[in-house]
């Protein structure tokens, strides 16, 4: 992106305060504002002050900061809005659903049946293409961490997956596949 385009970036101006927004948090690295076109009430955008389009362009320090701020803002939203959960979501690239030319991290307060499609439904995948993908991904991950990675032993919890697929018939109320009692406790914990 050229300097001129950066100067026209709406989100750079929102982060710096040149364009007014409902700011709920700010520090030297990021600003968090309420989305004016929210998925649900209280949808927050965490915007890096430095102009970056996607996460891979960020320094490790900024990535780490963004993660910690997101955790704390998620908790703040749960307490402030008395919701039972949040989705913390990033889209890197147009193919992933990114709409703005500036990196945004979304924190979306969630309630039952709110119509937000961030469920990650279990899918029947072609085993051959999954294995081909893994064979390409493993060395690429190793390169990033500077280590050699062997093809790992892959385990699939079959019984659980079948149960999860049954619950797919009612996508409105995804039933937890396991640990239900603990998930109930989580809900109670978050509700406090």
């Amino acid at each position, binding site marked *: 992106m050229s300097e001129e385009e950066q100067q026209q970036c709406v989100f750079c101006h929102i982060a710096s305060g040149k364009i007014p927004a409902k700011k709920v948090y700010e520090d030297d690295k990021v600003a968090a504002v309420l989305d004016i076109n929210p998925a649900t009430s209280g949808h927050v955008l965490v915007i890096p002050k430095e102009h970056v389009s996607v996460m891979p362009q960020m320094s490790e320090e900024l990535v780490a900061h963004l993660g910690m701020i*997101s955790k704390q803002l998620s908790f703040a939203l749960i307490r402030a809005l008395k919701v039972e959960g949040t989705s*913390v979501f990033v889209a890197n690239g147009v193919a992933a659903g990114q709409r703005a030319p500036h990196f945004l991290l979304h924190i979306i307060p969630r309630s039952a049946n709110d119509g937000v499609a961030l469920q990650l439904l279990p899918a029947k995948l072609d085993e051959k293409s999954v294995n081909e*993908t893994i064979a390409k991904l493993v060395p690429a991950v190793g390169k990033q961490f500077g280590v050699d990675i062997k093809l790992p032993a892959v385990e699939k919890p079959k019984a659980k997956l079948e149960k999860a697929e049954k619950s797919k018939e009612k996508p409105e109320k995804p039933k937890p596949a396991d640990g239900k009692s603990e998930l109930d406790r989580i809900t109670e914990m978050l509700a406090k």
Partner: protein
Amino acid sequence: MSECMFCDLMQKKSNLLFESDKVFAMLSPDPSTAGQVSVLPKVHAPILEAVPDFVVAEMFKVANKVGIAVFEGLGAQGTNLLVQNGPTAGQKHNHVILNVIPRFENDHFPIGWNPKPAPEEELSSLEGKIKDETKNVGLFEKEKARPVEIEGPQEVKEDYRIKALRRIP
């Protein structure tokens, strides 16, 4: 076998891609798309708020590197990062997971939402409510330093006050 499937997988090092002392990156045991990677804290924690700040920082750093590998190794055109924090957010397992999802143009991956404009008054009242809870945001919990091993006797710096004390009979 513990109560947590992911703690068991980590112990057996199943699906392992990368591990540090704090986090574990594994091929998702129940992927929604090929090449989905799950980044988890090693300590059992059901939700993000139960994970120490410095571990969350490492989860994001590891997820970003995995994301770069997804771009380079798979030739993906995009990645999604997603934490489903709580059952209403679609959380299915009792261990917190930061998912890295490879995306390709026209892959029809069912993810997203319908944005609706929010009235100004509603945003203003939300701003006030949320700001009341963000006063401690940005104060991070640091990892406790491991005890430093001291070799040999420690030299104590003497100052004039100690010397002065010795003079008292």
